[in-house]
């Protein structure tokens, strides 16, 4: 599958999807760990992709989203942001609202 098709396919299948470094149990970056904690704090049901296991996707997604770093959170196919935005939205309660519908 062409890489941009694969990105769209993933985003279509997973309403709350975090592209991160490592896994929720073993995050390999403090920013990815913070994003996971925020999602868990918002009681979100979410899927993750470990970008270290997907080098091609890792590069392609940066152009796709115009976002040069990881983690990246998508809800219903739309980029929400990186760890600063995710954590901020968790604190304000917005994240809980966003992921529950």
């Amino acid at each position, binding site marked *: 599958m062409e890489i941009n098709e694969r990105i769209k396919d993933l985003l279509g299948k997973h309403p709350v999807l975090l592209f991160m470094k490592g896994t929720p149990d073993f995050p390999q*970056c403090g920013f990815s760990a913070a994003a996971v904690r925020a999602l868990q704090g918002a009681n979100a049901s979410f899927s993750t992709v470990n970008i270290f296991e997907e080098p091609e996707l890792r590069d392609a997604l940066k152009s796709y989203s115009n976002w040069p*770093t990881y983690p990246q959170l998508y809800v219903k196919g739309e980029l929400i942001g990186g*760890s600063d*935005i995710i954590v901020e939205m968790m604190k304000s309660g917005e994240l809980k609202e966003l992921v529950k519908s």
Partner: protein
Amino acid sequence: MTATRLERIRASLTAGLQPDTLELTDDSHLHAGHAGARDGRGHFRVYIVSKRFATMRPLQRHQLVYRTLGDLMQTDIHALSISTFTPDEAQTRQPGHFNPR
């Protein structure tokens, strides 16, 4: 080396965003030895107050910052923690609000 890198980042953001306030911190020492630090690029934290952020959501503000930094995101910056405010927003924040950690 680090001073030069900080100057490059500062110059890029100053030219691109005409900020009222720009505080840039090099956090690279906090991440020495972790996987993301091995490529030699740094971890930075930036606090920006700019009129340019008016009417923009956090996602768009961060994308503007990343776009402004352009190639520096590939060559010099591994991770960037971003706090953005308009001049009006900055006035209503309590001092010390800026502490993303």
